[in-house]
């Protein structure tokens, strides 16, 4: 819980110091939340966070969503209707980092504050700010944890990485390359998965981020080398699938699985020892902090600033594990379950 307060305070520091001095609640601040879809638990949590924060600050919130992942048209239409209704700010998780730039530019030209949640635009400066998880750091944490957990055996690790899909999008390579960096592997080009030549890497395969893909990918990599003992996964559903594959050949107890996300079923899997450690992200916080930033902007005109050294505002990552290691701060699965999303 400490980190959460810390982040809130730092956000206050960044964007809202003037808000505290401003005249009490200007009536009728409007805000919009446009998510990728409204079915994924990650975005459901995001919407809950935004609604709670909006209610708390007396802000009128409209929520919109794409029909499915990749649906750009609906999001553009949503942004246009948000501009038309005169909101002060828009929170957006873009379904396409490039295709939404013109719509966002149009909003900003109309004096609307536009904050990306979770996924940055390309280029990131096309929006006023991005509130997101540091996916590279999320990877580094589980990589460092795995290295510490294996100790001297880390030198002889046999590593499988179960990634998202063949397109190598940013969240995919950031998590993967973060993991490798944390584990102590030379990643070569940090935007490319698979250009490494470390002999400890058995191979990469893709999962589409679901259980079925995780299982098939794990089976395939085990065929390449049955002695795999460390598995990185893009998210927790893929990790659950990998575990099933390991269980079918009786190897579930001597392989370490690490993951990223912090969904409730995933954290439960940490509690039951299926996943060794996972990096948790905070969709609810992204949204509630976004609403607070819109309020500050409406009242004082001040825009949020990025975290130091990043081109976005980091909403925090927390390592969840029940086997903590020296020097890497982490929370237990029990604490994680209280804060997981979905």
């Amino acid at each position, binding site marked *: 819980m400490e980190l959460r307060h810390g982040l809130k305070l730092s956000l206050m520091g960044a964007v809202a110091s003037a808000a505290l001095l401003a005249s009490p609640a200007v009536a009728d601040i409007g805000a919009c939340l446009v998510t990728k879809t409204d079915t994924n638990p990650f975005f459901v949590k995001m919407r809950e966070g935004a609604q709670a924060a909006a209610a708390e600050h007396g802000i009128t919130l409209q929520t919109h969503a794409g029909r499915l992942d990749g649906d750009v048209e609906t999001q553009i239409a949503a942004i246009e209707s948000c501009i038309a209704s005169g909101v002060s700010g828009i929170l957006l998780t873009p379904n396409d980092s490039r295709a939404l730039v013109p719509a966002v530019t149009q909003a900003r030209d109309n004096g609307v504050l536009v904050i990306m949640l979770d996924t940055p635009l390309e280029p990131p400066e096309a929006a006023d700010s991005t509130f997101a998880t540091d996916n590279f750091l999320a990877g580094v944490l589980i990589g460092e944890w795995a290295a510490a957990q294996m100790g001297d055996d880390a030198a002889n690790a046999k590593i499988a990485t179960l990634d998202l899909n063949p397109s190598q999008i940013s969240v995919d390579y950031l998590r993967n390359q973060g993991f490798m960096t944390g584990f102590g592997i030379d990643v070569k080009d940090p935007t490319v998965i698979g250009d490494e030549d470390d002999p400890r890497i058995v191979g990469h395969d893709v999962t589409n*981020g679901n259980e*079925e893909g995780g*299982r098939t990918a794990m089976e395939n990599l085990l065929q390449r080398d049955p002695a795999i003992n460390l598995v990185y996964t893009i998210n927790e*559903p893929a990790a659950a699938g990998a575990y099933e594959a390991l269980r079918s050949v009786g190897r579930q107890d001597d392989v370490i699985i690490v993951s990223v996300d912090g969904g409730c079923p995933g954290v439960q899997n940490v509690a039951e020892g299926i996943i060794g450690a996972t990096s948790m992200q905070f969709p609810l916080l992204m949204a509630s902090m976004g609403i607070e930033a819109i309020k500050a902007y409406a009242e004082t005109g001040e825009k949020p600033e990025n975290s130091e050294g990043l081109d976005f505002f980091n909403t925090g990552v927390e390592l969840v594990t029940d086997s903590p290691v020296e020097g890497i701060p982490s929370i237990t699965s029990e604490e994680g379950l209280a804060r997981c999303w*979905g």
Partner: protein
Amino acid sequence: MSDTPRSAAEYEQTLTGADTRVAQFEGPKRTPLGHIQHFLHSHPTMVPVIVLVLSLIVFGILAGDRFFTPFNLSLILQQVSIIGILAAAQSLIILTAGIDLSVAAIMVLMSVISGKLAITLGVPPSLALTASFVLGTLAGMLNGLLVTRLRLPPFIVTLGTWNIFFALNLWLSGAQSIRSQDIDQMAPILKFFGNSFRIGGANITYGSILMVLVFVVLWYMLTRTAWGRHVYAIGDDKEAAELAGIRTDRMLISVYALAGFICALAAWASIGRVGSISPQSFYEGNLQSITAVVIGGISLFGGRGSIMGALFGALIVGVFQSGLRLAGVDVLWQVFAIGWLIIIAVAIDQWIRKVSA
């Protein structure tokens, strides 16, 4: 009739010098290629069988000894089992000259329904499974009713129901998986088809056996029963079938309903295969099932091809994926290879069809 035999014989005398051959439809002498074409026309499953055997040999050489182990071969069987069962349902529809884009969506929805009932609501697992079979059949029947009663093209109907079933699936599940461990605890029977036994290094899951059984039963129904003949007749020429006295609408509804039932069966098997109940899995299962059917040499124009072809088609895809992966080829190029397979398969099908023209 009043002619005397004698006068008839006289007329016929002029025939002695005439051509005595009976009417024949053979064209000019076939080229060797023409022989192959004709052979493949009369044995539609031979193309996928040949491709399967060839690809096994090629990957056996390319991917090294890890490919040809009993374990790996049984793994391929396991990995294609779900798409294989869906391809069986898809074959039925395609044989009637239709197409079903909703097969995977019905399957995922049924797995979510049985999971929701058995795990979340605590309904007895056997009852939950029964419900999924009934609802799966009804979902298929809905497709059939829309195709026959509203006279909409199957592509449009199932494009619509695909979206509808997918949306229902996300709504019911909240896009959240049901964990494998919870299923083990509350309703292990849902994972029945994930059980396996070993024969000399091979690891055969019940799901793999189920897939083969589904194909054998459907093969019997399609080739040995009147119902099966009617399926082919409708696919070949629906109007002619109707004129021949087949109640085509009723037949079509029964085919779609059976496909729905098979999707529910695939749903049960998929829980065993994946471990958890995952609403996000198999999003492209419909296209993968069509791929298997097409590579299996079943004509998209209906009425031609053996259902066994779809089984071989699914296996060919599995062999390609496994072989390319073991050979260390990037996933990107696996997708590339499957794309070419589809095009080549349909091109061969078109070429074979020219025999009858």
